[in-house]
């Protein structure tokens, strides 16, 4: 039995309510999901949470996986969407922080300088990625870092290839400025 057939069989068994079969799928894709989540959040703890949430949601929605595309793409889409929602939540928290700061201290200053700009290159890259809007970050992570084609990234992000290209163009311009 080929790997693809085996995977389809596991998906079918998972749909039928076999969590052990789903465990095998988790084992196969856990690294991919963790890496995506880390690149999108810049935090191992948040990546772990989001990875778990991704698999739980995937199990919950296995019925919507039609099998026409790759399971990894379908899983990647769930991961990215959860990460984009996470980024929105973080943005709201930042706004809340600023509001409280202004109300309680009469001073709306925020301190974005927590990153050590003299740190290692990887830290710099992650720091720059985190400064991008979440959708631009997702385009960079999927194509430039994970090596997906624009078409694959577009399917995961639920947008056109042109949109992916545009997001990459905008992201590249910023990253060059921040990382040079």
């Amino acid at each position, binding site marked *: 039995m080929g790997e693809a057939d085996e995977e389809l069989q596991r998906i079918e068994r998972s749909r039928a*309510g076999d*969590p052990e079969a789903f465990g095998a799928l*988790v084992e196969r894709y856990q690294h991919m999901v963790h890496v995506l989540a880390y690149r999108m959040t810049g935090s191992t703890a948040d990546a772990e*949470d989001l990875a*778990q949430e991704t698999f739980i949601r995937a199990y919950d929605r296995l019925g919507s996986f039609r099998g026409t595309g790759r399971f990894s793409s379908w899983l990647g889409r769930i991961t990215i969407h959860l990460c984009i929602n996470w980024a929105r939540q973080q943005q709201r928290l930042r706004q*809340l*922080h600023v509001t409280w*700061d202004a109300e309680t*201290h009469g001073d709306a200053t925020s301190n974005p300088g927590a990153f050590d700009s003299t740190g290692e290159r990887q830290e710099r890259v992650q720091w720059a990625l985190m400064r991008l809007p979440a959708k631009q970050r997702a385009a960079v992570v999927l194509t430039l870092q994970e090596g997906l084609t624009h078409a694959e990234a577009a399917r995961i992000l639920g947008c056109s290839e042109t949109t992916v290209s545009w997001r990459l163009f905008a992201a590249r311009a910023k990253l060059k400025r921040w990382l040079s």
Partner: protein
Amino acid sequence: MNNHELDTLLRNSRPPDWPQAYWETFPSQVVRGVRESEPRTGRVRAPRRGASARLMVSGLAVAACLVLALWLGHRSPREGLDPQLVTASARLLSELTGLFPNTFRAVISEGNQSRILLSEGESARGTEPVLVRLCHNGECLTIVTFSGERIEVGPLRFEVLAGGKGEVLLVGEDFVWSGTDSAQLLQGQRVEAITFSATL
């Protein structure tokens, strides 16, 4: 920097890897979560791993609430709940329930520390929101939570219960505190508590 140099830099940036033991246990944790939650809810829900890390939102959430703590936690003790404190707490409650729908349990602010407590899975929360303030030796702690929540602050453990007329009960293993908006003693602490609806 040109596109090629940028792409190389991005490709060479590897995320930190997790220890092998993590990869070995992660699938079984997901499976366990699926098993535990499926029969109860009919939907898949998993408890989040690592109690402290999962019940507390770190990073920005704590940072956001640190500011609250500096203000709520350092308010000087005085008779009666400050209307400004009640208003600010109600606003914070609104923000946090929006950010963490169905999982927000409480925010506890003390001095320069603040904790947001979240439930392990989604839980329908339709109970009365409550503001509790504990002061001892000039230091105060503020809790914004819901009726029915169990709160643990140091050695103090109690359940917060709201009555129909805005009165609040704190029920511990060996004590019951009851009051509306009046200061009373609970294990040496001065307590003030009120339901938000009572302030409207």
